[in-house]
């Protein structure tokens, strides 16, 4: 079957999608967006977290057919998403001219290294909250959504918001630091 939906502000279509396929598989294997990670495939680990119509969900538990006509934001689009939010501009998507002039950002088109980062991504780097990196994309999407909703979170709020994301490296302390840092920078308007 064919699925048309919006990913990171751009209309996308996926063809020959198997009816039992997950959104995660479509993103990774059909649209070339491997940022959302495939680990447990049962909603336990949160490493595939994306925003579906703004709501954080495990993309491994969303059937591809369920996203027809809907909007998805992945970690790849987080920087743009955060920027648009902070600018308060309602326009989403890319104009034709912009699309024609588009080039992969950064020094490495595969990793996006050197590209723009969202505040929460920068905070994760600055606080040393990234080790193996596998859980990071899901944590970034979940943390960014919490800071959008709750700009001044308590430690309990952060733990609650990230309770669906497993990390096996850091012991979570640096992740807590990173989210606190992002919240502090956000409130200072840095």
């Amino acid at each position, binding site marked *: *079957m064919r699925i048309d939906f919006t990913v990171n502000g751009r209309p996308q279509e996926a063809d020959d999608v*198997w*009816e*039992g396929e*997950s959104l995660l598989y479509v993103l990774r294997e059909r649209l070339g967006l491997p940022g959302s990670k495939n680990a447990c*495939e*049962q*909603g*336990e680990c*949160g490493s595939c*977290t994306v925003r579906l119509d703004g*709501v*954080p*969900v*495990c993309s*491994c*538990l*969303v*059937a591809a*057919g*369920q996203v*027809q006509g809907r909007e998805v934001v992945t970690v790849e689009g987080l920087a743009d998403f955060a920027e648009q939010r902070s600018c308060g501009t309602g326009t989403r998507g890319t104009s034709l001219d912009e699309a024609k002039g588009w080039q992969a950002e950064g020094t490495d088109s595969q990793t996006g290294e050197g590209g723009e980062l969202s505040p929460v991504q920068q905070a994760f780097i600055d606080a040393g909250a990234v080790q193996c990196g596998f859980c990071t994309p899901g944590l970034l999407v*979940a943390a960014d959504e919490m800071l959008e909703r709750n700009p001044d979170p308590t430690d309990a709020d952060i733990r*609650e*918001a990230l*309770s*669906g*994301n*497993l990390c096996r490296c850091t012991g979570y302390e640096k992740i807590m630091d990173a989210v606190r840092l992002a919240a502090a920078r956000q409130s200072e308007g840095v």
Partner: protein
Amino acid sequence: MDFLRPASWEEALAAKAEHPAAVPIAGGTDVMVEINFDHRRPEYLMDLNRVGDLYEWEVGEDSVRLGASVPYSKIMEHLRAELPGLALASHTVASPQIRNRGGVGGNLGTASPAGDAHPALLAAGAEVEVESVRGSRRIPIDAFYTGVKRNALAPDELIRAVHIKKAEGPQQYSKVGTRNAMVIAVCAFGLALHPGTRTVRTGIGSAAPTPIRAQAAEEFLNAALEEGGFWDNGKIITPSVAKRFADLCAGACNPIDDVRGTASYRRHAVGVMARRTLTWTWESYRDARRITEGAA
């Protein structure tokens, strides 16, 4: 596999009548796991995300009509006053991501003895509104669970909503697991005080082939509270009454040994949760009475 996308409730009923084997999918938090792990290959998958009224709720005079797909996060956010037991149970479901997708309809459809909503529904009192092209009916929650992962639905029926009695007294919910998030209950317990009818109702999860009520325990407690005039005098429940209630709740269980816990642990834990939730709810009831009397 075929993917059915009904745009309305009527279309969904028609599709289910035509393909009774179609598996409904809403939040996907159970169904997609089974598909991802190749445990299930339904011939038809029927997406209910486009049926908007499944995501709505109405607060009536005596009860709340909760659409089958209203996600747990909305119950926590909007229905804490009307459905405190279910709101507490919702908060114990998995993680924010799962609570944003899963709802009570899915819990009822799967009818796992470990479903988090069941003890709260049993304790509050509820009816499940199901419908097919043949018509609509309401199944009392006590008659809904018929076996391990079995329910009273006919093959052509879909769950439309749950009618849950609004709380008229304190309610509590307790769950045992190895951590706070992402846990399937080792066992769970729900308790609701119904001061209007001077009754107490219970719900037990993961400690029998289906979610159950501890009926003998309820009868004992109702009689003991009546006899001692507790509803009127607002006294602390006698420890011997609480202990007997807890023992009867533990006795209502028919658990198994499995990877999450042993049968004897489950029985013990249900007894502990019964005593605690009774104490907590009764304290709230006494506090509410004191405030009312103080104001009078």
